[in-house]
């Protein structure tokens, strides 16, 4: 948020640097004196959790890359060498693999939090779009990372995902060959995936900086959806947000450690413990859990789209599936304009609240469907669930803004906080109305 800086260097060196490279001032303004709404709940700590996850993935990734060999002949073995013979190698590899999953757990909570509290609405459209770009880059990074151990799922996952591009009319096959660096998934593919898997996280880090920058320009949303109006509405980032973030980061780490140390294989797939074999496809090719909803959408389109009353195929089922899948992500870019309601927080939107939770359930269900074989009852369920996914964004979101009667919203954040405090019978109403004591 704007406002002049409160950074005041005291040491000689501090003053010297402040005139030349005011890095300390930047850090102070962004992470110490930066004002945050005082009513943020636990779901707002997931930004910090994601930051930690990104750093943790980059550090463990750099470290295990010291032991990994990107060669189709020995990649699988080099991962096993890491796990068996390198000091703490098993821990580092589990941490990186489970970390990828946990990164997505956190990002999904973060995205749904944004959807619930209307964090994409004016003036935060760019903030939201940068977030969707980060999400896309995360998916690319995770996919390429999953290929590196060169197990059966790695290989066949690469086979399936790169085949998406061959659905593009005319140039599809050529594009695929260029992606693979060969006529099929092979050593060249593995090498370029390793290169890109190493590069993309740093691109993510770059966009995260922009994401945080826009956040600090527009300020955070908060559960009331009412913008910050006075100094009473906010608290300095340090110590208030820092300590809260730290607490929830550690809670999140406990969940992560539980998986890393006790269920390291739970989130992965057993077939990836079999070395890649181009001649034998696993019985069920299933992507990692965080891609499952999109995988369900891909397979929901099993029909050609034809010109009505003719048999001329406009979009065949393969291209249709790929388009639907990419559409499911592209639609996220337009969310700021698809939502026509001017009420930010879902707390004050009684109808949208129902649809929001339906959407959450539907997304989880899509994920479950993604893990099911495309047969029998599952196919119509995939279709219904896919339909609801798009219906939510393309129909419900725009329409509700016109029909819904929102609840009364508080005049300010402070009002909301005080109302809550008096409801719960807190005795310190008077104290809270005053300027918060920032001495900690």
């Amino acid at each position, binding site marked *: 948020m704007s406002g002049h800086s409160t950074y005041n260097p005291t040491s000689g060196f501090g003053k010297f640097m402040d005139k030349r490279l005011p890095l300390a001032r930047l850090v102070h303004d962004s992470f110490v004196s930066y004002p945050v709404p005082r009513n943020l709940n636990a779901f707002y700590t997931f930004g910090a959790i994601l930051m930690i996850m990104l750093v943790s993935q980059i550090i463990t990734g750099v470290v295990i890359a*010291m032991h990994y060999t990107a060669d189709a002949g020995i990649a699988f073995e080099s991962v096993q*060498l890491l796990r068996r*013979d*390198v*000091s*703490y190698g098993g*821990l*580092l590899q589990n941490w990186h693999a489970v970390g990828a999953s946990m990164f997505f757990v956190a990002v999904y909570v973060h995205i749904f939090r944004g959807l619930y509290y209307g964090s994409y609405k004016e003036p935060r459209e760019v903030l939201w779009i940068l977030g969707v770009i980060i999400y896309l880059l995360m998916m690319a990074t995770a996919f390429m990372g999953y290929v590196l151990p060169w197990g059966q799922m790695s290989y066949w996952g690469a086979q399936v995902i790169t085949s998406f591009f061959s659905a593009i009319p005319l140039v599809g096959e050529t594009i695929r060959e260029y992606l693979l660096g060969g006529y099929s998934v092979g050593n060249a593919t593995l090498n370029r995936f390793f290169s890109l898997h190493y590069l993309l996280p740093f691109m993510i880090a770059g966009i995260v900086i922009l994401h945080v920058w826009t956040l600090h320009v527009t300020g955070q949303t908060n559960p009331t959806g009412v913008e910050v109006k006075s100094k009473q509405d906010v608290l300095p980032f340090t110590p208030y947000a820092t300590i809260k973030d730290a607490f929830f980061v550690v809670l999140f780490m406990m969940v992560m450690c539980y998986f890393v140390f006790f269920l390291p294989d739970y989130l992965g797939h057993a077939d990836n413990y079999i070395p890649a074999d181009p001649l034998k496809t696993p019985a069920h090719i299933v992507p990692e859990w965080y891609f499952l909803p999109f995988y369900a959408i891909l397979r929901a389109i099993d029909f050609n789209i034809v010109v009505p009353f003719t048999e001329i195929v406009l979009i065949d089922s393969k291209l249709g599936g790929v388009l639907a899948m990419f559409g499911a992500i592209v639609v996220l870019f337009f969310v700021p304009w698809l939502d026509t309601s001017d009420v930010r927080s879902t707390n004050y939107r009684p109808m949208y609240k129902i649809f929001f939770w339906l959407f959450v359930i539907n997304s989880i269900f899509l994920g479950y469907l993604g893990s099911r074989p495309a047969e029998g009852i599952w196919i119509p369920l995939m279709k219904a669930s896919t339909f609801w996914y798009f219906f939510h964004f393309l129909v419900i979101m725009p329409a509700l803004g016109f029909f819904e009667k929102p609840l009364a919203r508080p005049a300010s954040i402070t009002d909301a906080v005080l109302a809550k405090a008096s409801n719960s019978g807190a005795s310190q109403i008077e104290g809270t109305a005053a300027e918060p004591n920032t001495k900690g």
Partner: protein
Amino acid sequence: MSEHTHDDATRRDFLYIATGAAGAVAVAGIAWPLVSQMGPNAREQAAGAPVEIDVSEIEAGQLITVIWRGAPYFVRKLTEVEIKAADDAQQSEFRDFQPANERIAAAEGATPQWAIVAANCTHLGCVPTKVDTGLNGWVCPCHGSIFDVTGRVIKGPAPINLPLPPFVFASEDTLIIGTDQA
């Protein structure tokens, strides 16, 4: 009242210090595996176990190069003439003098006639070439350091003698490099 706030402040300080200390432990706990993984891995360590060499077929004046832990070592059987020359050489001829008998080894009960030295020049690590002109035993091709037949440096730039690896003779014909315990 003032006492109460004082107690409060102490309790608060204790809490903050304890939390900070736990944070420091967490950082150390994270750093430990990250540093630990840098060392030689178990396979490397196992492969770095002492090596056994059968020296029965090496003639006097001959030299073999042995690899232990990825680095070369010279095992040279000295002729009587070479041993005599090394014994007789003056301290002033060397840059880093050591008596010859400290550098010539053998199995228990056998005549000492083995020079077992690291094969990387102590200057910048090149592998010296074997020569046998008088006292000279090796010449480094990189920067011209000269060593005698027992690996003592005669002429720089190498500052010190070729180091001796840990070794032991298990029997007259079996040399083990990598340990000095039989």
